[in-house]
């Protein structure tokens, strides 16, 4: 298996100028690049192996589609754009090694990518040391646009806080105020739990208990018995991956889906697709969904994606990659420069045009903390759901109404003088 490593411009072909000219003229019918035009390089570091490979692959697909479109519309500053893709394995060490390679060997102009927060944090730090613009496409930890924010880092996906705040109101009003939690026993799980409890207490609800399950738990029966004994209105499962599959399957075996509402925080189409049908249930939040009736340009985007990728629909991850790559091009063209600081200034407050936003309302990078403010999509998995109709959006919640303010998030940007 060979990487489909670049978008419309083949990386090695570009090195051979002649080959590049013929290749690009084949793929880019509308604009033909001059042979001497050196490409603007966007380095995309995403997991292609390991736990997050499926999510990483979709982010790469989104970025690839964006770069194709950018090149058709004239590239960045009249130069073609080249997307270089490297595998982070979902681990910060290899991610930084790849970033070092991209900066010293490939001489990339911008960096983007990452699915998990550990990688995002390390790439944010790396790129600020190298005066490079970095867009965190998919790592959610609050500090990245909060207390550890840097002048050069932007984030397209939502924050941990938004993951819980998005469906809290819906769950609370629809299903009741007595909640029980099954939390994976590590930092990320704890922070999701704490965020939910803070909102629950504030609204006047009550947490009946919190069962801490170690990562990699296969038998959830003791936790589920605890939860059933507490008789909550809502059972919140904060697991991910295989743990989520196990807890949901066993909850169904216990018949708990008929006694209470099973819910959780953020959920992904990739995860629901991988779940066995018996475990496809519950109330969750999506960060983007392919089926939003009445949203302009969305149908074309979904159709283009299906045509390019075997009939698969784009996911939130696809959109993260797509929007991030487009944002870089928009900002660089607006700044008329590739200089990191100038592009950063152009990205601050940049509103995504409708053909990139692909959702209602105003989608923009907040200037004070560089966090994308878009929408959250709480809803549920319908009974007997099959791909690709795995989710039913109940509400479209503008992130701006529930996000923490930059001051609350603790972000103070310091720019290079």
């Amino acid at each position, binding site marked *: 298996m060979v990487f489909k490593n670049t978008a419309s411009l083949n990386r090695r072909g570009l090195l051979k100028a002649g080959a590049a000219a013929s290749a690009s003229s084949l793929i880019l019918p509308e604009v033909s690049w001059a042979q001497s035009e050196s490409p603007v390089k966007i380095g995309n570091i995403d997991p292609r192996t390991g736990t997050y490979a499926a999510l990483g692959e979709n982010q790469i697909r989104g970025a690839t589609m964006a770069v194709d479109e950018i090149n058709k519309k004239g590239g960045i500053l009249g130069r073609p754009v080249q997307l270089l893709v490297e595998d982070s394995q979902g*681990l*910060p060490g290899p991610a930084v090694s790849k970033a070092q390679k991209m900066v010293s060997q490939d001489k990339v102009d911008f960096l983007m990518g990452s699915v998990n927060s550990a990688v995002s*944090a*390390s790439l944010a730090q790396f790129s600020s040391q190298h005066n490079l613009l970095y867009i965190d496409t998919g790592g959610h930890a609050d500090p990245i646009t909060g207390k550890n924010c840097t002048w050069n880092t932007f984030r397209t996906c939502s924050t941990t806080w938004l993951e819980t705040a998005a469906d809290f109101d819906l769950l609370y009003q629809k299903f009741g105020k007595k909640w029980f939690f099954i939390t994976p026993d590590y930092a990320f799980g704890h922070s999701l739990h704490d965020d939910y409890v803070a909102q629950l207490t504030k609204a006047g609800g009550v947490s009946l208990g919190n069962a801490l399950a170690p990562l990699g738990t296969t038998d959830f029966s003791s936790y589920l018995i605890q939860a059933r004994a507490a008789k909550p209105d809502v059972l919140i499962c904060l697991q991910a991956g295989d743990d989520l599959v196990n807890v949901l399957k066993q909850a169904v075996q216990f018949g708990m889906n008929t006694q209470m509402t099973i819910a959780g925080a953020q959920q992904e189409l990739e995860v629901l697709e991988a779940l066995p049908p018996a475990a496809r249930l519950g109330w969750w939040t999506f960060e983007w969904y392919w089926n939003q009736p009445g949203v302009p340009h969305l149908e074309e985007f979904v159709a283009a994606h299906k045509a390019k990728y075997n009939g698969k629909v784009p996911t939130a991850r696809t959109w993260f990659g797509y929007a991030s790559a487009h944002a870089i091009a928009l900002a660089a063209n607006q700044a008329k420069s590739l200089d990191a600081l100038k592009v950063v200034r152009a990205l601050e407050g940049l509103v995504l045009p409708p053909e990139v936003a692909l959702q209602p309302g105003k989608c923009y990078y907040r200037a004070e903390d560089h966090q994308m403010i878009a929408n959250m999509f709480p809803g549920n998995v319908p009974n007997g759901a099959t791909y690709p109709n795995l989710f039913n959006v109940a509400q479209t919640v503008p992130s701006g109404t529930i996000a923490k303010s930059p001051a609350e998030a603790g972000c103070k940007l310091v720019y290079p003088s």
Partner: protein
Amino acid sequence: MSASIETKPAAAQGSARMLVAAGIWVLLLLVPLWLPALGGYTDLATRALIYAIAASGLNLVLGYTGGLSFGHAAYFGLGAYGAGLCLIYIAPSLPLAILAGTVLGGIAGILVGPMAMKRKGIYFAMITIAFGQMFYFIAVRWNALTGGEDGLTGFSRVPLHLGGHAIHMGPVRFYYLVLALFAVVMLVLWQILRSPLGHSFVAVRENTTRLRFLGVAVDKQIWVAFAISTFITALAGALNALLTGFASPDNLGWQLSGSFVVICVLGGMRSYWGPFLGAIIFIVAQDYLSSVTQNWMSFIGLIFVLAVLFFPQGLLGFIKGRARS
């Protein structure tokens, strides 16, 4: 198999070896000049050297003393966390950070040694893995100090202060710092291996029973070898933290321990330069293959299988065997 250290070389063989060693050092000194021309970059060479240090440390136990340690990443990781924590909480000093990391990992090795040394063969391997995973979970769970599974960030390579001058550590300068420390490690290992202590390590590997009959405290020898080796691996970990700018739990995990063993086996466990050669092959293959295909791990595995099948003494053992015959 006679390890290079045991053979009493003839004069001609000795001078040939000197020539090879001199060639290696000259090439290493000139890396920033020739590597970019070959499509590499300086940080790649730095990483290869760091892995060479770690694997050379491990090889003192694995190759020379015959102890299958599958948990050496623990000391590598402790070195990384030690250096990072020192830079964040104690003082922004490069030498102090390297020292702190080395000492932290080394002390852990000294403490773990007595518990591991009583076990033989597969049990030694298991207990070293177990201790490795113990440190891994401490790093994951002790959120407040280590940053949990997000890793420890927020430190960077501070300038080196020498005689009132602040020397900024760019990639090239950091490479030379790592190269200097690599030279020190190789020199120390060389001195140890030709001393009676080093000979006793090899004796432990070759015939433990006989050594016991001779009244040698075998356990103590293993402990000493283990402790020295963890100090060296921890040094590599500290340097790695400075190279990448953070420490993360996967610096402590069993996968990395496995990589170190693969490096030793690939290059040649019975050879002084074996881990160095293994590290170069491993790092270059990893860097190149992972850019070309997402199944790069299969290729690393394939290289390993082929190496074990056809060069059971490692690549260097094979080359030496050919040269001798």
